[in-house]
């Protein structure tokens, strides 16, 4: 290659670099929680404190691989991601740093954060049973496990086992009942399916409305979204296991990146996100539940009723996730 070409390429790299740097500023967040859910929060934070937030969204896996590859030179300060499994793996792979901050420990209950304080849940997502109000009486329902019973033959709809929500659900079941019992439950579910597993929760609910099946398992906020569009939706939520361990919950959460260059500002942001002020904004944007016990959910969400949450530490979901996937593969749950 000619020298001049090489010089030109290098010059271009630096020009692009300058452009990229021009955007960089105070706190850098890598987020697997989607832009339209976090941007309003960041805007509010900037308005309140004057601190600029720079963020990059992607799937959790690539974001973590990215932080690992960048190593000591990562620009990231904070990692926000969805699902306890991802948070657990981020902590395990050593990209997060343990944080000792009273306000966080006060705002986030034990079971919704890492035992080593490397990540903190910021919103709660409940995965529960949804049923057709036309064909199912709530009295027929009791627990997730009961959906494996013969009375639900050809009446159950599920989302694909590839979705992390179901992997976490089964992981928590393993934590409670052990592998063998959980496997027979999942096999029971698969045997009861009215249709092949769907690719998302909304499809599960639409199938119930259309009469393809009668019950399903979904995250509550998907129900909320559908209800918003059609207030007369012939579906209702059921809180299972209220006499037992309670409803399976999962979190979206955040942790401090180990090689953050700006730990003070990053921690301030993290603490703020768990505060009463931010919690409603954080949860309500997606009709989720706040983690902070002193914050009430949005009235629309609260209207679905109070329920007992499963208090096993959500990091279990991460620990047992691989086990859960293997189990579902064996049970031919696609």
């Amino acid at each position: 290659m000619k020298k001049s070409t090489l010089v030109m390429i290098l010059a271009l790299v630096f020009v692009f670099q300058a452009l990229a740097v021009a955007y960089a500023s105070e706190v850098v967040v890598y987020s697997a929680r989607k832009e339209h859910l976090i941007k309003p929060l960041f805007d509010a934070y900037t308005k309140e404190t004057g601190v600029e937030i720079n963020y990059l969204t992607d799937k959790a896996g690539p974001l973590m691989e990215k932080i690992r590859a960048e190593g000591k030179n990562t620009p990231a300060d904070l990692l926000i991601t969805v699902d306890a499994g991802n948070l657990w793996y981020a902590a395990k792979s050593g990209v997060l740093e343990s944080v000792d901050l009273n306000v966080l420990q006060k705002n986030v209950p034990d079971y919704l954060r890492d035992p080593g304080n490397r990540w903190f849940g910021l919103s709660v997502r409940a995965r529960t049973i949804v049923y057709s109000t036309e064909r199912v009486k709530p009295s027929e329902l009791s627990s997730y496990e009961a959906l494996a019973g013969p009375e639900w033959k050809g009446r159950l709809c599920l989302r694909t086992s590839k979705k992390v929500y179901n992997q976490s659900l089964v992981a928590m079941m393993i934590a409670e009942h052990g592998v063998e019992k959980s496997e027979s439950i999942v096999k029971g579910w698969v045997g009861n399916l009215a249709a092949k597993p769907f690719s998302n929760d909304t499809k599960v609910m639409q199938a119930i409305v259309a009469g393809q099946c009668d019950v399903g398992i979904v995250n509550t906020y998907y129900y909320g979204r559908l209800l918003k569009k059609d207030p007369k939706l012939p579906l209702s939520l059921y809180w299972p296991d209220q006499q037992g361990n309670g409803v399976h919950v999962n979190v979206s959460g955040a942790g401090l990146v180990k090689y953050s260059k700006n730990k003070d500002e990053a921690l301030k942001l993290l603490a703020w996100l768990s505060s009463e002020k931010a919690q409603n904004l954080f949860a309500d944007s997606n009709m989720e539940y706040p983690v902070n016990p002193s914050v009430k959910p949005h009235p629309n969400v609260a209207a679905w009723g109070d329920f007992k949450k499963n208090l096993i530490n959500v990091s279990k979901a991460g620990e047992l996730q691989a086990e859960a996937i293997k189990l579902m593969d064996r049970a031919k749950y696609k």
Partner: protein
Amino acid sequence: MLPAINVMKYMDGWRASALLISLLVAVPIVVVLVSMLSVTGDIWEHLVENVLSELLVNTVWLVAGVAAGTYLIGVSLAWLTAVCDFPGRKFFSWSLLLPLSIPAYVLAFVFLGIFDFTGPVQTLLRGWFGAENVHFPDVSSTGGVITVMTLVLYPYVYLLARNAFMTQGRRALEAAASLGHSRVSGFFRVALPMARPWIAGGVLLVVMESLADFGAVSIFNYNTFTTAIYKAWFGFFSLPAAAQLSSILVLIVFIIIVMEQRMRSGMKFTRAGREAAGGGRIRLKGVWKWTAFAVSFSVLLVAFIIPVIQLLIWTVEVFEEEFSFRYFGFLTHSLLLGIAGAIIVCSLALVLSYSKRHHPDKLSGFLTRTATLGYALPGTVLAVGVFIPVAYLDNVIIDVMRNMAGLEMTSLFKGSLFVLIIAYMIRFMAAGFNTINSAMQRVTRSIDEAARLMGMRGIKMLSKVHLPILKGGVFTAAIIVFVDIMKEMPITLMMRPFGWDTLAVKIFELTSEGEWARAALPSIVLIMAGILPVILLTRKGERS
């Protein structure tokens, strides 16, 4: 170029460039494959025991089905619009390319939304005949996913086959007729085999796309190698297991490419006869002409009109909520990346193809095969493969700078547009190269020799002699790459600089939260941005 290299007889600028390009592509693939060397133990065992056979069967079905489907639709529509005449031919000849601008995952979602149990079609049927009497085939099936992928990918075959038929020359068909072969027989025994390199190039793109596709198959919950790779990585948190699966995928693609090249080694395809088909189209009559119309129209209807109408309906519903002036930024970013990427990919594909022509030996074959492998890897896996070495290089340079000059910085190459575009090159080289290389076969030896006698060599030969002949092919390649880049998600997500969100990024954000209706706005903008060049492309083809 480098004087040291000139010493070796078979080495010159072209060879060296080809070496460099294939090296660029090889690095991320090697990075991915090397990571498979780390032990994964029980995960791999589990995969082999419980899912591998299903993956193989599913993947083979998908690839075979989509290849057959795109071949059938692409070639027959290309023949109809390139050689025959029937009502609406001119309109169809360009509009049949429009599905090129629709991302596969968008069509998949729309298709399921319309035709599955909860969709309007089946609901309507149940309303008319009662739930017990409606036996609609399960659309969320192998057949369904093959249909959707076929409808999205057939334009690749259509485009290249049409190009071949238009420039094939009438002579060969006349020769066949003079030897007692009817039009039908002439088509199967002469026109079709002669168009084979182009058709094969198109089908190869289709095969690679369907192997790498994640969006559409996951909407159908259809397990393929790609979905398994994602599961290994995001579910088992095992990049090594994902790499092991990817290596099987790379191997499959490599075998397919080698097989395809073996199949037509020894054959050379230059056009027979000087007359283009333009003058004497075959005028279809009676039933045939309306059949041709009906076939073309139904493909266009299902693959483009219906999904666009559905997207428009959704867009109207969400417009107020979703639209903001940031969309102009998304659009600009998408366009800029698409254009820059198309230019880089096509230039390098040209260099690669030219180098192969200059050195028609085994090494060239190996280099070009390597350089086109990036197309078949699932995007996310490739993205990591690109990112890891770039970040490594960055870290080395940053450390050196810190120690030597006391300079503090966090990134040099990573997160720069330059690297993003290189990553696109690695991913889409096949899309550019296959098209350009097919066109290159049309430049005969004697053209080279004539130009050489007039004192043209190297770059000058390329720009003065070959480029004008290759113009059509290069333009086609540029459009394909442009549209592909605009639709691309995982690499853009991972490699984009801060603030460089594109339409595809926006679609990803919304769809991964299940907000399909809201994703309609960026989708429709993306499709519209892709349509214009597609129309340009066919106008071009019509003239030449």
